[in-house]
């Protein structure tokens, strides 16, 4: 039950190979970027210019010869050699619109099957090393913070929310306790726990103690969340708007060793003015995302950091009366990069005007297996702490072509 109970230092000849492989996986990190609301595949990674469904934007060449992205992604296009694009992702339609579809994508299971943990909590549990830092941080827009995401993994693995990139809640001491006064009260608390733990089971009190330890660390290290401490040059490169700041913050957190960082970029739900929306949103997204990707590579982190660019569903080929596109779960695009991913390729294909998958359909459940496999986790395994629930949907399988 307790995270870190078996530290990485325990690897030895006695450890079974599968366990050793799990420990090996603990060095891995993950960056998830969620384009919230439903990114249009037509205006991004699967352009269909000059067709009845293609919309007004053109396709541009990328750094991978023969692969084209929408012209709304000029910078990301230059990162194509670091990415793998899947153009044939699909899911069954589920009731409940965005939230349910997001759950489907982020848990790999249809939400009608009940609550499952999202990717972040799973990585936090299975990849977290010895770090005192939170295992699962979610940088959210100013509104619409995250919902509980850990399901049966419990609050220990639930994401720490950085609303609009601000430090977590309650990270500032109350006025009555100065830094010195803080030391004294923690010291007294430790004494009480020490006495209580004599001749008693210690698992719970150790877990409780460790939560205060981590809280204290975080209170002292509030600077971790302060993007202003990054070089001014980098702040310029990432841009001063929210998503730019959030990407730079993600770089800072990943560099400090946080296991899983998720950034939500809102909002792509373009039932009206789809083209205007995407021009604007992707205009904000494109440069910081590609800057983050190349920075991670230049810092030597990309090899151990899986990058997952997600959205809950695609958008309809049909252009609706208000120049919008509606929700589409028959096919859309997901982009991966970094750790464990074969870069530079495109998997799957849609037909000429993007109404159907023409080649290699990939279910969101298959993608979910792949997200785990890419960082060295066995997606066929089960959760150990409750009801032996399979980590990933057992009827689905990792997408081998994507794995390096």
């Amino acid at each position, binding site marked *: 039950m307790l995270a870190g109970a078996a530290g990485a230092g325990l690897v030895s000849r006695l450890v079974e190979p599968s366990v050793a492989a799990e420990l090996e996986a603990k060095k891995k990190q993950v960056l998830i970027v969620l384009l919230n609301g439903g990114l249009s595949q037509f205006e991004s990674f699967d352009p269909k210019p000059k067709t009845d469904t293609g919309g007004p934007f053109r396709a541009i060449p990328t750094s991978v010869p023969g692969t084209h992205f929408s012209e709304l992604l000029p910078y990301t296009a230059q990162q194509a050699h670091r990415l793998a694009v899947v153009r044939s992702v699909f899911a069954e339609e589920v009731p409940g619109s965005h939230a349910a579809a997001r759950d489907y994508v982020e848990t790999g299971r249809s939400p009608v099957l009940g609550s499952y943990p999202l990717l972040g909590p799973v990585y936090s549990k299975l990849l977290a090393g010895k770090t005192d830092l939170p295992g699962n941080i979610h940088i959210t827009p100013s509104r619409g913070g995250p919902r*509980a995401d850990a399901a049966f993994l*419990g609050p220990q693995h639930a994401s720490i929310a950085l609303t609009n990139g601000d430090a977590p809640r309650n990270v500032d001491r109350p006025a*009555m306790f100065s830094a010195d*006064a803080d030391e004294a009260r923690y010291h*007294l608390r430790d004494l009480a726990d020490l006495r209580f733990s004599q*001749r008693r089971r210690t698992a719970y009190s150790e877990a409780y103690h460790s939560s205060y330890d981590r809280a204290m660390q975080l209170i002292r290290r509030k600077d971790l969340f302060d993007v202003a401490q990054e070089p001014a040059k980098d702040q310029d490169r990432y841009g001063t708007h929210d998503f730019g700041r959030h990407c730079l913050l993600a770089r800072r957190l990943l560099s400090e060793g946080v296991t899983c960082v998720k950034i939500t970029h809102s909002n792509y739900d373009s039932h009206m003015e789809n083209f205007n929306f995407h021009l604007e949103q992707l205009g904000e997204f494109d440069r910081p995302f590609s800057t983050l990707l190349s920075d991670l590579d230049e810092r030597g982190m990309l090899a151990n950091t899986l990058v997952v660019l997600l959205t809950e569903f695609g958008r309809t080929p049909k252009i609706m009366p208000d120049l919008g596109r509606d929700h589409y779960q028959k096919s859309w695009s997901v982009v991966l990069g970094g750790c464990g991913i074969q870069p530079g390729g495109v998997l799957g294909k849609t037909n000429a005007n993007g109404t159907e998958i023409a080649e290699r359909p990939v279910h969101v459940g298959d993608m979910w297996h792949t997200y785990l496999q890419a960082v060295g986790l066995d997606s066929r395994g089960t959760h150990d702490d409750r009801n032996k629930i399979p980590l990933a949907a057992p009827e689905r399988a990792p997408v081998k072509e994507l794995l390096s």
Partner: protein
Amino acid sequence: MNFGTDLAPALPYPRLRSPAMPPASLRRCVALLLSALAAWNGAAQKSSALDGPLHVAIDRQIAAALPKFKLKQTAERADDAEFLRRVTLDLTGVIPTADEVRAFTADKSPDKRTSLIDRLLASDEYARHLAVVFDVMLMERRPDEHVTSSEWRDYLAASFRQNKPLDALIREILLSDGLDPATRPAAKFVLDRDAVHDTLVRDIGRLFLGVDLQCAQCHDHPTVTDYRHLHYYGLHVFLAGTKLYRLPSGDKQMGLQEEVVREATFASVFDPDVQNKTGPRLMDAPAMDVPTFKVGEEYVEKPSSKTRAVPKFSLRKALAESLPRSETREFSRNMANRLWAHLMGRGLVQPLDMHHSANPPSHPELLALLADEFAAMKFDVRRFFREIALSDAYQRSSLAPPGVSPDAMPEESYALANFKGLGPEPLFASLIRATGNELTLERQLDEATKAATDDAARTKARAAERDKRVKEFTDLFGSSAGTPEGEFQASLPQALFLANAESIAVWLAPQHDNLTARLQKRSQPEQIAEEAYLSILSRSPTPEEVAAVQKHLSGKVGDVLAIEQLVWSLIASSEFRLNH
């Protein structure tokens, strides 16, 4: 073993504060208890296989199993303070007051523990706490949809106040269609799951039968061979016709209707070409016979878009009648295990919803006995709790015997008291009580509701204000919606909240007659230590602890900061955070 006489003696300790419980209703409550008991005496003694009290049998079984855990001894009996805190938290959801600790430890009567258990079981706090416990168990912190939490909790509290048998309670919950205002709250279980069949099947399986069929929804369970796709669909048929129905009242209120469904067709996702069929069935029981009607005559009234569909034979009613009863072994076993886990910190089968042959109970005979006896006592929850609470196993200390490592005493041995984390509601109530801020809270509620025009509005507004404060705790310390409260966990946001949140700081600061204010007025460190420990940890401090307090306060008597540090260190301690 006469419940009536145990309850009769004048209460030797200060009565639990129960302002909402006038004497008349207390008398009514006792009368109900007694009549329930009379019924029990008539029926249960015939069917009970025991020749002595159940709690004695429990201890016999626990003792007999000790060698299995390589144990020769158990922990000693918990001292009075430890017992008082544990049983008060378990049965009423809040720590005892300092006065209650003083009175109980000073009490010399030999049967004071039995009296305490009976007094707590008869209290209104018990009914209200059990309402929370069952709300959390059955609704798993789902947001309100059609029935408000307060209506639902009132309904549950009334049920526990009158000690409604648990089978009857669950029958009502499965049966209520939400039309009759009197039983409408019971329909929350189905209504607030939007009558979604898969959700209902999963949750009825887990919560009422103790089987988690979640992974058997699309195929036989991949790792649990006992859980089959057939079980899932056998249960599914009972519910497949149930649908939401908009009541004609015009305020968008939903009730339930039912279409005629007889069987389910299903195919494994691994083998989609093989179609299987089943009629309604509970796990491995044979499929139920369903009466057939001529086509067009299946309904009480011919269904149309305007009328509510009411079949002549209701499968949901059939489920309500056949599931919660002693003949359904899974039901009595599951419920006995859940109530046991509530007091004992873990189920005989753990996880609670994983009863299957590859996950046997730690004490198979004891679970069988508890299931039988619970059924024999007609699912009388008070009676059942009372027996468990009277057992030595319940009354053991969480301190390992000298020279024995607590880690050598597994949780499932029950040789040592198991820890339970305080749930969000008990944590909130206990923090308020420990820091002496019950009055502060009352004043906060007064202040926030002073605009209310009449008493009814004020009562409602006060409840809403209190809920708002509790919500801060449920959001942080509770499980996420649709998942059960898991084992104790400690998260970073929880620690940051308890360490730094404004709402906690407010209770630490001296005001009115709260603990900090009282301690600030005391001049002797020993008195400060005594008062602080009794109020927060429900026990007196040890000499070492007194010495530590003396050291901390040396030269700082009357210093607010030093007192606040002391109070905080105790409310933030593991001893406070856990029911031990």
